[in-house]
């Protein structure tokens, strides 16, 4: 009986740990066709885990990556779009710099910076003319916060890139050039397993909208 209790508490602890592991949350996503483009407004919560806060406070950047998917009703994916917001704490001037879509904003405090990061207003996603007026669309979004460099969340893309590295030819061992395909990674990619060591939000979906 005592052993059973121990096992019960162990699993309870596991559940609590899982529930408290902080990943970003998408509170709302609202897509709206504007005059010439499709815009989106996003509200986020819990974007900075303690690890990310420490990284930012140490003076190294963090990247908030917005991964959008445009769906045609009911569930046909049309396009993928990625936007990155880079947050950097300038230790020397005690200010936070936010770089998003080639624009820079300055925040005087952590709270102000967090507020700017959690509320994204009317972000232009794509030209409106690409949408067919009669059709219904939805927008999906996943948010990931990556410390220091977005490259840390691009393992598969990096791997595809370096797979092109050629072997150096050497005298005595006549030149060979070619490719290597890591089958473990290929299978995990095909199986839809995504390696994100820092956690990403659940996919959130906007209410349906028309281009008109």
């Amino acid at each position, binding site marked *: 009986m005592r052993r059973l209790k121990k096992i019960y508490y162990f699993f309870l602890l596991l559940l609590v740990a899982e529930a408290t592991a902080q990943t970003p949350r998408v509170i709302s996503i609202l897509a709206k066709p504007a005059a010439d483009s499709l815009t989106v407004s996003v509200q986020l919560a819990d974007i900075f885990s303690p*690890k*990310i806060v*420490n*990284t930012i*406070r*140490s*003076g*190294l*950047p963090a990247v908030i990556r917005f991964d959008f998917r445009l769906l045609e009703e009911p569930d046909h994916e049309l396009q993928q779009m990625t936007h990155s917001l880079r947050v950097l704490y300038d*230790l*020397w001037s005690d200010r936070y710099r936010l770089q998003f879509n080639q624009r820079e904003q300055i925040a005087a405090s952590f709270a102000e910076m967090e507020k700017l990061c959690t509320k994204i207003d009317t972000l232009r996603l794509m030209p409106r003319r690409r949408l067919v007026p009669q059709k219904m669309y939805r927008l999906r979004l996943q948010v990931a916060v990556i*410390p*220091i*460099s977005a*490259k*840390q969340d691009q*393992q598969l893309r*990096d*791997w*595809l*890139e*370096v*797979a*092109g*590295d*050629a*072997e*150096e*030819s*050497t*005298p*005595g061992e*006549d*030149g*060979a*050039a*070619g*490719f*290597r*395909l*890591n*089958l*473990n990674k290929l299978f995990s990619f095909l199986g839809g397993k995504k*390696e994100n*060591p*820092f956690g990403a939000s659940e996919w959130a979906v906007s209410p349906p909208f028309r281009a008109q």
Partner: protein
Amino acid sequence: MQLLITKKKFYWLLLPTLLVAQFLWAQEGQLIVEQVKILGLRKTNSQIVQRYLGFRAGDVLTPELIERNYQTLQATNFFKQVSFRSEPGSGRGKVIVIIEVEERRRPTFEFAGGYSELDGWYFSPLGVRYDNLFGSGHWLGLRLLWGDRVGGANLRFYQPNIFSSSANFQFDADILGRQLIHYFDQRQSIQKVNTAGMRFTLSGSRGIGKYLSGGLQFSETQPDSFATLVGKDSTFFTFPETIAKDLGRKKFRSAWLRVQADTRDNALFPTKGIWGALSFEAVGGEAKFNRTIFDGRVYQKLSVGVLAWRLKLAKTSEATPFYERFYLGGVNSLRSFDERRLTPVGYGTKLLLSNLEYRIPLEWDKQGKPRFIGVLFFDAGRINGLKEIIGDDTVKALGFGVRVKVPVLGLLRMDFAYPVKHSDDFHFYLTLGPLF
């Protein structure tokens, strides 16, 4: 006088003050590594990870440096997961770098393919790598090889920094069946040569040692006693004396030394620098011969492109068996001729090959690396016995081509080559990887 002494004292005091001020000023705006913490290691010694890191406590830290080190650790294949983060250190601008890793417990399976100058097209339908098995940072792999002129298996063990030194050790064991191309009376024929061998290599990674490598090799070779005429499906058993003398099983043992230098700015698309290697091999056993090979490459940016030149010089003894000699002609040798078409019967003992290319990047990828490259080239070469084949001592060829970077496969190379004389035919080649 008193004033002068005071002034001197003042200057002596001012100097260290200025130095300290300059140091502090240099620190302003920079992040300095205070400590590196590595988490998640179960079997791997932290020194193994530190060996791959390009920074340590006291170094200036940038996101780009972290990016490079992240990629380096990923490339070791030791870890399933690598992530970098940081924490504020004990003072302003001081940073504690935290590296979290998840060690790989299972072997990785690979599929590989490509083009080799020696073996033509090849595929490795299955390769198994069990790197860092005992946590000592070694590489261990076994792969099967299958191609249009090769078949066999290779086992490789590589241990960097043996006994905590700057020397690296590598062991290779191979069982290979290679098909050599001969031209008898203008007709192409294929002869299989089977080899089994072991190779022990020592190389350095620091100081003068990084330019040197050397080793020992033990092998046994047996060529088939017959050759097959290509396209005729018929075999013949009567070889010229230069080949017939080397038929039968032979055992070899050899020692080799190589001096190598590399100052290229980029290994995949160099725009500046040199790569050069000079190797000498002394072979004993059932045949005694020496072999010297020089392979040098120079890269220089010129106007909109890069001028790249490769010169290969090779010489071996007359006693060298035909399957250890040199050949000329083909996509990775002298273009505008069929594979080994310029090779004399019994292969050559002296070789000169020059490839000059002008590479013009036409399109770049997001990382700023060339994705589409146009090339103009000029090849020249000579090998002893060439005059009997084409009536001339030297062969030259001109051509142009394109290189396209393809995901996974790497660089796809297309070349159109025209011989300057000796033939009116142009050759088209489609292959993988850069020539040099």
